[in-house]
């Protein structure tokens, strides 16, 4: 019912599982994460600002946030379409396509990175057609966007699918009985129902893209000020043994990610609001 200080459940193992869970969580996640914040807290304000707001770092933020946002939006649109097609329509190979959607989760990012680069390089399968048209993908900001779209693809589809499945057909029937045409039914009845899940999926894809490293570094070309994403910059600083600089940027990125996480939690609370009976 409500939170009870000491649960008096007859099921055993509360103490054991609580103790183990908290210890493991602290050792593997919380203490190492805290190290980043503590390290940064030891920096002077001026050092911190110069580390996180130099022109090269600002350029990397612009690229990382911009490309993540663009990739998230594309995934929101196409993810909605893919989820709709997978749930509502029947076509040969549907199960295979459904399984394939998870590929970006299962395929190592480095493999995705070199594969995308091979495809979009100027002699690649797609690149050789785009290049004459004046569109360069590999080693440009467009390449970063392509890689981030790839890795964010499953999020929107997988958040929307269960919601679409549970959407009662009665809603659509009721809407149709009340005289709405199909387009009105979709835009006024179905989309509002899907909106929280769609936003959640978008936010998840965005958060994932923000921190992505492996799939991007191969295709981006890594030119400072132009195609250098923030995680790569952290890596570069680490290789130069600039631990303070790396950690300071990491903290900025962490705060951005955690804010997104918080937003997602709020979104899910908000979406559950309508479903409490």
């Amino acid at each position, binding site marked *: 019912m409500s939170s009870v200080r000491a649960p008096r459940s007859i099921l055993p193992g509360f103490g054991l599982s609580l103790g183990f*869970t908290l210890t493991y969580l602290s050792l593997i996640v919380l203490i190492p994460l805290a*190290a*980043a914040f503590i390290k940064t807290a030891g920096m002077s304000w001026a050092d911190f600002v110069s580390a996180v707001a130099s022109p090269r770092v600002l350029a990397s933020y612009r690229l990382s946030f911009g490309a993540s946002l663009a990739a998230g939006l594309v995934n929101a649109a196409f993810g909605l379409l893919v989820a709709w097609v997978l749930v509502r329509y029947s076509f040969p190979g549907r199960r295979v396509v459904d399984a394939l959607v*998870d590929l*970006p989760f299962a395929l190592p990012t480095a493999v995705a990175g070199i594969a995308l680069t091979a*495809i979009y390089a100027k002699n690649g399968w797609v690149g050789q057609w785009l290049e004459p048209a004046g569109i360069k993908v590999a080693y440009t900001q467009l390449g970063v966007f392509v890689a981030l779209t790839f890795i964010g693809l499953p*999020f929107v589809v997988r958040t929307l*699918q*269960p919601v679409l499945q549970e959407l009662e057909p009665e809603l659509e029937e009721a809407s149709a009985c009340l005289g709405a045409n199909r387009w009105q039914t979709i835009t006024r009845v179905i989309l509002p129902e899907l909106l929280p899940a769609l936003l959640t999926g978008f936010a998840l894809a965005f958060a994932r893209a923000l921190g992505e*490293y492996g799939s991007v570094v191969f295709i981006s070309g890594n030119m400072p000020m132009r195609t250098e994403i923030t995680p790569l910059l952290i890596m570069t600083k680490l290789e130069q043994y600039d631990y303070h600089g790396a950690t300071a940027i990491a903290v900025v990125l962490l705060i951005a990610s955690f804010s997104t996480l918080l937003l997602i939690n709020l979104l899910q609370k908000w979406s559950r609001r309508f479903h409490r009976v």
Partner: protein
Amino acid sequence: MAASVTSTLSTLPTPSSTAPRATHDARWVRWTLTTIALLFLGFFLVLPLVAVFAEALRHGLRAYLASFSDPDALASIKLTLLTAAIAVPANLVFGISAAWLIAKFNFRGKSVLTTLIDLPFAVSPVISGLIYVLVFGLQGWFGGWLIEHNLKVIFAVPGIVLATTFVTFPIIARELIPLMQAQGSDEEYAAITLGANGWQTFWRVTLPNIKWGLLYGVILCNARAMGEFGAVSVVSGHIRGETNTMPLHVEILYNEYNFVAAFAVASLLALLAIVTLVLKSLVEWRHARSRA
């Protein structure tokens, strides 16, 4: 809650052909939408996957197979297997413990704990490696102590295992928590009233009920553990034959323009991904059947 939805088992119902007409789209709408969706997926998913194998086999099967006779490649495969063999069981035990705690008990701070478990999903892989450098690295909290005792964590195998464990930390727990919550505790209560003790209840009642979800969690966790790149890259030190996992070896070969060998090793990882997806589909199918 981040990324929670992404890995949870889903089951696709077959759209019934007798669906009411009010929920039906016109044939041309269905055709157009399906075509666009498939084209999008084809470009973004199928093409890269095919490219891996095409590039690996560019110079024929012989060149492909020769890539695996390289001792450094073999060492990287061994290290990858070792890393997964430690990280996956560790996260498995944690996943079961956390799921039992969260699904079976009510306590203060439960929702905070659930959010904390998701944290690693929101952390960039590069940062996941960085934080271990800050703790165990030369200038880190335990750096001095480790040197005194002649122990090495960063730029060595322990660091790789730790970073991998961090990155795959929530996967199994995330799979089990919703599953166990949905199943409720009535069967466990029944077992207890029939005289079963805690372990008996867990092994004979809880575990058989969650086995498919558990299996899928382990499979996914394993795939991610073997394929982790960014975090491992930070802590590895890239010593050939010693601290290079398969993804890191792929990077080195690729940067040396040894494309066939790079894609050959990558093709093994891609196969692993395909096997993971196939197993996932099978598990979902079994799961759906056992629910029926």
